[in-house]
């Protein structure tokens, strides 16, 4: 049983690799069909942000446990320009309906836990978790 996968994100083709790997690992952990799609979609979005704004980065996906609960941890990190105003980026209006903006509020809705740490000039790390129901 695989426990952790690291996917370097360098170009848009890696977006598909990342979401398919995430889907596979989630399937192994026993997530349901629609949860798999939700997870794959969230990974696709954060991977896309890396490509669009930081050019390169990495996505790390691993199965985690909390007591009896099984879940998936996804960490998307990059050394890109960073987000100046994280609070603003997380506001619902500032979202991705037309492919502009970071789409973070939407991704947050898809996941059970969502944290973002970003520093201008240093980079961004998005940490999110989805637990099996």
């Amino acid at each position, binding site marked *: 049983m695989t426990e952790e996968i690291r996917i370097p994100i360098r170009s*848009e083709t890696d977006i598909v690799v990342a979401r*398919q790997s995430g889907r596979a690992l989630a399937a192994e952990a026993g997530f349901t069909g629609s949860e798999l*799609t939700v997870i794959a979609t969230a990974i696709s979005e954060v991977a896309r942000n890396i490509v669009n704004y930081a050019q390169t980065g990495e996505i790390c996906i691993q199965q985690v446990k909390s007591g009896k609960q099984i879940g998936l941890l996804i960490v998307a990190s990059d050394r890109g320009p960073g987000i100046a105003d994280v609070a603003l980026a997380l506001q619902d209006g500032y979202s991705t309906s037309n*492919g502009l903006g970071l789409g973070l*509020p*939407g991704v947050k*809705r*898809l996941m059970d836990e969502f944290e973002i740490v970003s520093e201008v000039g240093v980079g961004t790390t998005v940490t999110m978790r989805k637990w099996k129901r």
Partner: protein
Amino acid sequence: MKVPVLKLGKYLIASVQGSLTDADLVELSSELSEKVGRYRARGVVIDVTTLDVMDSFATRMLRDIAQMARLRGAETVIAGIQPDVAFAMVQLGLGLEGVSTCLDLEEGLAYLEKRLKAGNRDRGNSDTHSL
């Protein structure tokens, strides 16, 4: 993976298989653009029954494709968005406003036929009125 585009009478059918990279979508867009023009297609059905994920880029591209087709006189319908995908899209806040959607390819073609007939009827009427 390249998306095959078939011609069925005055319609074009694009069948998406599995996963689409951004490049695939861009290629699909230009191919449809070219073919709508070349065949003077009146309608396009993009069948996404086997599409695994619809993210922000895919949504934007499909909307752009529909707009492009409309400018060239063709109506677009997206067929076969799966329950899981629809659910995830809505959670993410993605919508396909301004683009027709339907359950599957069969429905899509039926829809285009209906719209075409309605369009012809209107055109017929307006001709009469202008006389």
